């Protein structure tokens, strides 16, 4: 069992490939995928999502400044 809980290896690979070298983005997406796996059906997703975006976006923008 990986640290990512119920996520398939193939899913993690697909995300890694899509994110290329953007490690910040990859960790962010894996985190969200784990949350979704923990909460099937309806759940209060907005706050966790908004919080994570707020935590990550500014740093990501700095890393990806042109």
């Amino acid at each position, binding site marked *: 069992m990986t640290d990512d809980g119920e996520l398939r290896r*193939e899913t993690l690979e697909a995300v890694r*490939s899509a994110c290329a070298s*953007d490690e910040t983005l990859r960790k962010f*997406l894996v985190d969200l995928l784990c949350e979704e*796996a923990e909460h099937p059906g309806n759940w209060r997703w*907005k706050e966790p999502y908004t919080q994570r*975006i707020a935590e990550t976006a500014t740093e990501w923008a700095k890393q990806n400044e042109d």
Partner: protein
Amino acid sequence: MRIEQISIANYRQYEEVEIEFPPGDAADLHLLIGENGTGKTNLVNAITWCLYGDEPHLSRASSAVARPNTGVVDAASDGDRVSVRVELVVDTGRESPLTFRREETYRISCGEEGQPNLNVPVLEGTEFVVIRREEGDAEFLDGEEAEAQVERFVPKGIRDFFLFDSERLDQYFREATAQSIRHAIFELSRIDLLERVSKHLDTICTEFRRKTRKESPQLEEAERELEEAEKRRKEAVSRVGTCRGEITTARQKFEECRKELEGIEHASELERRRGEVEATIGRKRQAREEKAQQKAGLLLEHGVLAGFLPSVERLVRSIRDKRDSHEIPPAIAVSALEESLAQAICELCGQPLSVEAQNRVRSLQEQMEISAEVSLALLSMEGYLSQVSERAAGFEDDMRRAAEDLRDLDTDLTELQSELAEIDRKLVGMDTARVRELVRQRGKFDNMHNDAQQRLGQFQVQQRLADERLEKAKEAYESELKRTKKVGTLRDQIAFCQRAVGAVDEAKQGLMASTRSDIQAGTTRIFRDLTWKQHTFERVWIDEDYSLGIVDPEGRERLGDLSAAERQLLALSFTLSLHEVSGFSSPILVDTPVARVTGDNRKRFAQVLGRLSEGKQVVLILTPDEYSPDVRECLAPMAATVRRLALDEHERSTRLVSMRDGN
């Protein structure tokens, strides 16, 4: 995830049963053997009732019987309460085990005095909870939280791929649309997680963008246009998707009809010709009836006369002869004689008439009256008899023509009846009503397919236009966003969300393609392992629209040619491949897995199912007939538990007996 224990109390024929499933060393395989009627299928029903509150595998007979065990109900007194309960203890692999418990309480109402003793259970209440126990504490989840746990364990929408009997799986598979197969693949492969992340990020991104509206009118306009363009594009994509689905479905249904009609296609032509022949026979019979009536009418009207024709003709000749020889007094007008007498002047020569002449005229008048009457009578008789003679003479021709027409009609009818008999001979054994229906349906699906194809073209054009509009709107919005200084943080968050959505969508596309390919390859491999026809089927395919087919070595589509047992194999192969590829860890429980399979093929089935149990929990419920020596030889050594279901002496309750030695 795996089931550790099932506890059943008073559920149908299970009065009090506890079934433990300890994992084996090499495989997590568990066998339950039972004769018909011992509760095999109701064990599956117990699990589905516990998790979802329904019993989809219930037989028609059982569905009329209330859930509480009949032995317990009959033994109860009036007013007693009986609790029906099923509990599943599930090892989730990470956290503490979860207990899924569903319980119904019934009050027993007995029959009135003097009436047969018939206890009736009356439902009073029901409860479903999920219990999480940790270090002595117990957390009780109910409502949506409990249902969420069920969805983590075995999602209801795809439970038919986890808890099934082979026949039901085949039926589900046959009725499955490309959409439902896609849904099964997405859920089992967890591609649905990516979809949910994408959707949620998209929602938040839209909300961030809306917040930027207030920073400038230009930004507001650009954002509104972007939102509108996105909405239009979603609608266009949805229309294209729906249309593609309709095309796929229509094509599948058309192929099914075409396959079924193949070889009996000419039956529809024969049927059509049969209809035409029957209609012609009807018309000919009607014409014959009318002709026969006409002939009978002729005979009735003229038949008697025809007998007297020679006499009539002689009489007519006689009258004509006498008229020609002036033997019949001319038809002198009696009024001339009357006028002559009245004037005493001859009307013919104008000379006065003497008394003697007047007497002679008076005598002639008397004779004339008699003669004129006779003359008139003879002449009118001649006229009438001439007509009768003509009619009677025509009668023979008319009768002859009528007889000829009748003979022609009889000949036609004989030929048509022969043709009908020939058609019927060719149609013997064919279900012609079914053929007609298939031809009708084939035409319907052909039209549906063509209509959908036309609409698809239009929708694709609309989607292209929507894409272009969206691109322009995005550029315009981002340009405005860069220009507007006040939206710094929001700009970063929007850009980040958009990048995240793009990455998730890219990951999803890649995963869909690879998963579909893997499931296709897995289904082919397992199917070829299971099937006894090693040269008939080459591979299984699943196209981008998630419709499924199977081809032979020449590349011809053969899905419609599969027998019932082969369809069952295919459904099972697809299911097992889904489980292999997805890595979804929940157990599989199969009721009568090899019922439709015979001989050596049962062993192949058993081997495939046994291999599956090396990676996940597999529970097989078999009849003694299915648990043949071949199957036993394959499965018993690797099974962690082998038990027999048996009814008690009163046949009211099922118990379990260990069969560790395989007997």
